[in-house]
């Protein structure tokens, strides 16, 4: 009996803390629903202090702004989007709570301060995660503020960490702490600074900057030295970054102007409605995404041929109805196509409203490729750069290798002779104009990922497109390529010193002066075709 009693006592003694902890957590969570935003940071600390790791999903949902509570009984629920319908789940079991609507729940508020705290809490729990990638990002999230406890945890798990990348990040974290730790020996702090000298992390630079300002002359000079070597690397990567920005702007210019290089360059038609062909392509992307809302990731592959067809057909129609009747009258063509551009803009305004339309970015195109902490290339621009080059080479192949290309070149070089040889010049004209317009449509698909899709989209690019084609040399595709990238890079290298407005002006002035000197552009056409 005595034994039984003592066993009971023992058991309850064992059980109670666990039960109490969870009851305490529950009480805190209940309290959370009634807490004001300004008092919440204290709540986060209290919740973390319980050491209850089962709270991880609650923290996560809170961070994402999905944490809600039921108005009637303050039960916490997580909002989940299931096929476009808001449903609510239990945070721990992920079981859907049926019949709960968004009217019955209230959101648990979150602001930047809380987000920072929550990220820290989650990272500290995730330090022991099984996934190396999760551990890595957890350590990186903690770099900015490492308290004594985190340091102790890191020191404990560092020797057993199997992944070398995670180990090196952990070492950086440990060094950040040691370098700032007043209680560590000078030699240990110097060694830590030495380790930090190899890291490009922003937080590391902040630590070194503050050490540089410290009273200790030895530490200060070591920090300065470490900073010098870091800054040299940072500057080198900044140059790479800038070059990438230039190439990216160049690829946008190339895409926008390559269609014009055909209609204006090869056919000699001043097509002011070229920008609107781009706009039509962008709107086609929007419509395609409307038609397949659940397959946004694949919508681009449908949008590219669709945009080519829509803009291409529109181009053929314009050529047949208007441009072919104004052959050899450039001024009238200019005015007529300008009128067409206004009509198309108004058409889009009437159909889609004057407001910009939202085109979603497929998930595989968003985010960036992080090469190191100071150099990351945004994926959408990387894809568009590759895409622009692909389109360019495809077009060159069409003109060089296909029979259409042969006819196009023949007609553009000597129309009457080509006609005498039996080439259907009218058909070739229509096809060429359709091809140029179709390519502009494809450019619209790419641009819809970078800029606003609205009725004025085309106007923003028409000037740039003409600039590129004229600068590169009319009738020369390679010239267009070189000109687009030259202007893009020049613009991006000017921008940091002059600002965006002046950079654009400088580039324009440069082109005007250049055209004075070489009226036919970078790569003038030679021979009889030039006349």
């Amino acid at each position: 009996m005595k034994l039984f009693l003592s066993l009971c006592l023992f058991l309850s003694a064992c059980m109670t803390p666990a039960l109490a902890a969870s009851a305490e957590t529950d009480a805190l969570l209940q309290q959370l629903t009634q807490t004001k935003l300004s008092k919440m940071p204290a709540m986060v600390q209290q919740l973390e202090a319980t050491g209850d790791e089962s709270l991880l999903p609650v923290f996560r949902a809170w961070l994402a702004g999905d944490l809600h509570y039921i108005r009637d009984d303050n039960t916490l629920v997580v909002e989940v989007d299931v096929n476009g319908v808001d449903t609510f789940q239990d945070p721990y079991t992920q079981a859907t709570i049926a019949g709960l609507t968004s009217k019955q729940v209230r959101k648990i508020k979150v602001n930047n301060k809380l987000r920072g705290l929550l990220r820290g809490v989650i990272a500290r729990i995730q330090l022991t995660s099984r996934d190396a990638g999760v551990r890595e990002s957890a350590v990186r999230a903690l770099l900015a503020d490492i308290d004594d406890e985190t340091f102790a945890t890191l020191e404990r798990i560092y020797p057993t960490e199997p992944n070398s990348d995670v180990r090196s990040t952990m070492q950086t974290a440990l060094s950040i702490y040691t370098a700032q730790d007043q209680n560590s020996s000078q030699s240990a702090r110097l060694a830590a600074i030495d380790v930090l000298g190899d890291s490009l992390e922003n937080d590391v630079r902040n630590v070194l900057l503050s050490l540089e300002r410290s009273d200790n002359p030895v530490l200060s000079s070591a920090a300065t030295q470490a900073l010098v070597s870091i800054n040299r690397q940072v500057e080198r990567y900044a140059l790479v970054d800038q070059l990438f920005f230039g190439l990216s702007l160049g690829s946008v210019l190339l895409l926008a102007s390559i269609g014009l290089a055909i209609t204006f360059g090869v056919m000699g038609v001043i097509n002011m409605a070229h920008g609107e062909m781009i706009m039509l392509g962008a709107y086609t992307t929007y419509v395609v995404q409307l038609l397949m809302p659940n397959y946004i990731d694949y919508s681009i592959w449908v949008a590219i041929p669709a945009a080519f067809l829509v803009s291409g057909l529109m181009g053929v129609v314009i050529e047949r109805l208007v441009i072919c009747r104004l052959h050899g009258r450039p001024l009238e063509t200019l005015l007529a196509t300008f009128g067409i551009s206004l009509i198309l803009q108004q058409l889009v305004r009437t159909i889609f409203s004057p407001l910009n339309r939202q085109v979603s970015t497929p998930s595989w195109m968003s985010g960036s490729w992080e090469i190191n902490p100071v150099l990351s290339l945004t994926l959408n621009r990387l894809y568009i750069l590759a895409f622009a080059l692909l389109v360019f080479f495809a077009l060159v192949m069409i003109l060089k290798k296909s029979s259409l290309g042969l006819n196009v070149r023949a007609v553009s070089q000597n129309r009457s002779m080509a006609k005498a040889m039996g080439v259907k010049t009218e058909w070739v004209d229509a096809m060429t104009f359709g091809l140029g317009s179709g390519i502009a449509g494809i450019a619209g698909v790419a641009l819809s990922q970078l800029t606003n899709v609205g009725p004025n989209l085309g106007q923003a690019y028409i000037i740039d497109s003409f600039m590129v084609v004229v600068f590169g040399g009319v009738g020369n595709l390679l010239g267009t390529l070189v000109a687009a990238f030259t202007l893009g890079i020049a613009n991006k290298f000017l921008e940091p010193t002059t600002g965006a407005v002046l950079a654009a002006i400088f580039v324009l002035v440069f082109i005007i002066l250049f055209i004075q000197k070489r009226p036919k552009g970078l790569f003038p056409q030679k021979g009889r075709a030039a006349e």
Partner: protein
Amino acid sequence: MKLKTLASAIALSGATLIALPSMAADTIKVGVLHSLSGTMAISETTLKDTVLMMVEEQNKKGGLLGKKLEAVVVDPASNWPLFAEKARELITEEDVDVIFGGWTSVSRKSVLPVIEELNGLMFYPVQYEGEESSKNVFYTGAAPNQQAIPAVNYLKDELGVERWVLAGTDYVYPRTTNKILEAYLKDMGVAEEDIMINYTPFGHSDWQSIVSDIAKFGSAGKKTAVVSTINGDANVPFYKELGNQGISSEDIPVVAFSVGEEELSGLDTEPLVGHLAAWNYFQSVETDANEAFITKWQAFTKNPERVSNDPMEATYIGFNMWANAVTVAGTTDVDEVEQAMIGQETPNLTGGIAVMNKNHHLSKPVLIGEIQDDGQFETVWETDGVVPGDAWSDFLPGSKDLIADWTAPIKCGNYNTKTKSCSGQNY
């Protein structure tokens, strides 16, 4: 018999024909001067609808002075000089009694000479740079001390920001606001090298290098924030680029003065979560007046998802004040309505009372909100009580001593309190 009916029918229709012009004169005409196309259409179309809704509602209540209201809508197409032409057309040809309109400051500046020459009356419902007070204009949006200055104080005091990026679109509102902010920051002891100022053209879409510059500027070991006066649709690629380059609101918060619920609707707000905006109104503010207004607005636009925003509230306050002033004055005569306007009080939508001051600016509360993933703002800070709008900034050397007071005996838009004189320039 048949002939008689026909004759009387003709007589009747003749009578109605004659009656028509006099009937038209029996309405009070309300001009709506908002861009319905072009780069600003995204923002301004909403305000046109708001005025139409207010007109419809006033007519349900029986109109004003026993007359029905009639809205006259024109489209200045985001084309600044066209604003002046359209304003002239509204006043001289359409004979409107009041104009609600304008968004960008350059459009307001373009209308000013016309409205003063023809002695019209205009309500301008958008936050602006101040440094102006015209007898013919009532400014129901925020002056810098009702938006920019409190926002900077919030960043400094609550978030501990020490380095500042002032980014704006290249025109008068951002340039003046940034001039005021720069002077204010320097007054507070912020060093020259801790302030970065950047301007971009309207509709700028390639933000790569600017965002990367901001990131570089923000990695100097001091907490950095961006104060954004970027206007119109250039905001979308700006925030997208911030997201793409991995700059979160916790690293470098962006506080915007021109991004509201309308601009966020239909936008993927995921990369924007946590960024800030300073306004005098948020749709998320829970008051009965606001709830009623939103319900009415969504019913009017037949769109249950339609959002409301700050310039709409400013239009709402302006319209109600004008209606009250016309009732008090008993006429739509511009001079009498102008005097009746001063001191008008009307409830705002966030639970306080808006007052029209002698300088033609409102007293309003200031709210700072964080963008949430549903495109709404979460109020994280607000002023205690209302802040009176200041026409002339206290932080610019040229306008420190100036006040605007449109009551007797001063009756001046830029009265110098030191020299006790009115410069004579009207705006």
